[in-house]
């Protein structure tokens, strides 16, 4: 799988490129800035772009802007955004604006190669990936009248994975459950939380996130 890396920290970029190559990825380009990234993508569109959110010159949200530009020009390129911290604000924005094929992870996640490699592939395949820390934060959040209290322990676990963007098949693999059982859990969660069931994965993530945030 062909990927492009964009990060202004050279050590991190090189390290990430190395482990991705070890995991069988073809790193076709490395960029230091958003402009360089766009240039590389235009010249040779990859299957996925791994982008640091904070890059020169402004060190604010250049990565997100660049990702949006790539989505406009090359809608098939999967976009995985990395950051030193994950915020609901960005997660919601990425889910609503990008309609799938997008991920949002803490930079630390690269050190868990197996999971990271799978996340890159899922994004390239059009799935959504949300950092587990962010989801955990939302799921753990106390609520005035906590609707999550109605969920069973197993259902909470399913919800957290759903919110990360996992599909039902991924859930059944992760939880060692049959596809039918997973479907039953998901239906139950949607009913208990009053969420409209939806076929698209990213819509599912969006609905879950919106609910968790409220």
């Amino acid at each position: 799988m062909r990927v492009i890396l964009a990060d202004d920290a050279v050590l991190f970029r090189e390290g990430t490129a190395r482990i991705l190559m070890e995991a069988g990825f073809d790193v076709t380009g490395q960029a230091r800035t958003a402009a360089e990234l766009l240039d590389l993508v235009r010249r040779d569109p990859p299957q996925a772009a791994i982008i640091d959110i904070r890059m020169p010159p402004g060190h604010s949200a250049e990565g997100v802007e660049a990702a949006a530009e790539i989505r406009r020009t090359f809608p098939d390129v999967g976009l995985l955004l990395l950051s030193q911290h994950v915020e609901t604000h960005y997660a919601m924005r990425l889910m609503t604006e990008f309609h799938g094929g997008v991920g949002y992870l803490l930079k630390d996640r690269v050190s868990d190669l197996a999971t990271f490699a799978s996340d890159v592939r899922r994004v390239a395949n059009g799935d959504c990936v949300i950092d587990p820390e962010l989801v955990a934060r939302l799921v753990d959040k106390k609520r005035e009248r906590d609707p999550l209290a109605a969920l069973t322990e197993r259902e909470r676990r399913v919800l957290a994975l759903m919110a990360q963007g996992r599909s039902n098949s991924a859930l059944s693999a992760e939880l060692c459950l049959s596809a039918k059982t997973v479907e039953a859990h998901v239906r139950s969660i949607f009913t208990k939380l009053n969420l409209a069931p939806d076929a698209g994965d990213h819509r599912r993530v969006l609905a879950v996130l919106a609910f968790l945030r409220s």
Partner: protein
Amino acid sequence: MFVVGGFSLGVYLPNLHNGLIAATFTAVGVFVLSRRPGNREGWLFIATGVAHAVMFFGRQYGLSATAAGGVDALPGAVWVMWVGVWPLALVLVLSGVTLMCFPDGRLPSPRWRVVVVTMVVAGALLALMSALWPVEYAENSLSLPHPLRVGGYDTAQRLWNVIGPSCYALFQAAWVTGVVVRMRRAQGDEARQLRWFAYAVAMGAVAMAVSVLVFGSPVLGVLVVPTVALAAGVAIAKYRLYDIDPVINKTLVLGTMAALVTAGYITVVVVVGRVVGLSATQHPVLSVVATAIVAVAFEPARRRVQAWADHLVYGRRPTPYEALARLSTQLSRGSQHADLFTGLATTVADGVGAAEVTLWVGPEDKLVAVASWPPPPEQGSPTTTAPRELSSLEDGGRTYVRPIVHQGSIRGAVTLTRAPGDALTASEDRLLHDLVAQAGLIIDNVGLGVELQQRLHQITVQAAELQAAAKRIVAAQYEARRRIEGDLHDGAQQRLVTLALSLQAVAERAASTGDDELAARVDEARHQLSRALAELRELARGIHPAILTQEGLDAALGFLAERSPIPVQVDVCLQQRLAQDVEATAYFVVSEALTNAAKHSRASRIVITGRFGDGRLSIEVTDNGRGGADSHWGHGLQGLVDRLATLNGRLTVHSPAGGGTRLQVDIPCG
């Protein structure tokens, strides 16, 4: 010219007043206009004067023709005479309007226009009648015939007999009413102008009465006529305007005393003499007794008359107590020092009665005039004169100089000028002394006030500088926090993430070589590193949340709410980015509020509302906890209050025991 020509034709008593009026009114009008160009009353005077001049000349011509032997003695005598007679009604109207409009050339009020129009119409009607028929010839003992021979003379004369005199009387009544109305309303300078005029008219009337009664001829009275015009001119030009009151006062006293003495003497000598049956010539004792009685009664009577005259002229003069009370009211009102000084001068003038009062401030050898009464005609500072010495302030007997002494040193002086021969009475002198004693206090107070104002100004400037400095410091602090967060992000955090990547490589190497112990230790190290990274993230957020810089206050408050252990409902709608220090201060205040709520409030619910409007950011954090937060708002809050203060922001905490806590932040964003 008409007047000179007229007089060259001889002096005729029935026409003398016209000539005098013509000459004096014209002259006074010219005088007034030279002093006050554009003065409307000046023009009215001239108009009146010229109209009279025309009449005067016409009548003089006719009279001299009559004296010379009849109609043919002078060429065109009939017609010239006619010109001198028929405009009389209109001229009377003009004179009336002139008097009504005294002293400013305007009618007492717009409603008087109706009266004037009526007068003009009536005057025109009468003049027309007089022009057509010799209706006025008879009563003016004019021997020349009327030049026109129009029919219906008898009817006209009968009609004239009815309306003529009554109209003339109404004209008189109209202007007298106008003047009286104006006198009742007038205040200040205008009242004095009118008093001049009324005084002259009254004196003229007295002179006329004396002239007719004593000398059996109006000549003296007629000769006094010009003085009315002169007094009016003086009044309009405001020349020595302030001398009028003492003059009237003295006249009243002298006149009344003269009348009283005469009456007393006559009463004693004639009435008593008649009763006793003796005449003064027969019995000198009576004269002596009368003189003695008058002499004894004189002083008490004079005092009474003086008091009555004072009351009449000055109105109700304030008593010494009232004058002092008025002064202290002015003092306690704490008005501008210029007002205080003017107030003092006015109080002295009103209380003691003066033509002129000046207040000087300064040490003995450098006195500066700071206020005067009457107020200077031009607006502006009266303190442009050079400093003077105390001893140089005396100028002749009319000026009283009273140094203002306070706490043993001279702080200034009051000079008071009275009309000639109007010396201060003992009680006036006492009041002057008391007022001057207060003046010392005022000058000191004003001095103190000025010093205080200067201090206050200094303090204001310093405070502004301090606040600006504090604002810079706080801004620099935020900047430093942002930089630290940026450094952490690009430095330590980046390095640690890279380190995690290296550990990943080591772990893979260990797995590939089958070194399970190494793999386990590397895994442990990765966990440690992961925790360190998480802690570092929290640290960086606490120093300065990146989301605040990147996304603004809306997003950052949502971020805070998300991390709060107590459920938070966020209702923030700012829709724009604000100044960095405003956003940061608001953010940290809310952060501190949430932390405190979590620690102390035992609340189950928190609501954050935030709005931006009218250039102000207002944020409210409300919880449903146990309240009584004042005690545990500690050091952190004080720091925030200080930061808020640099932005002119305000923080209020309302936290009754058991009633939840409401914290409000209000920051102007200019």
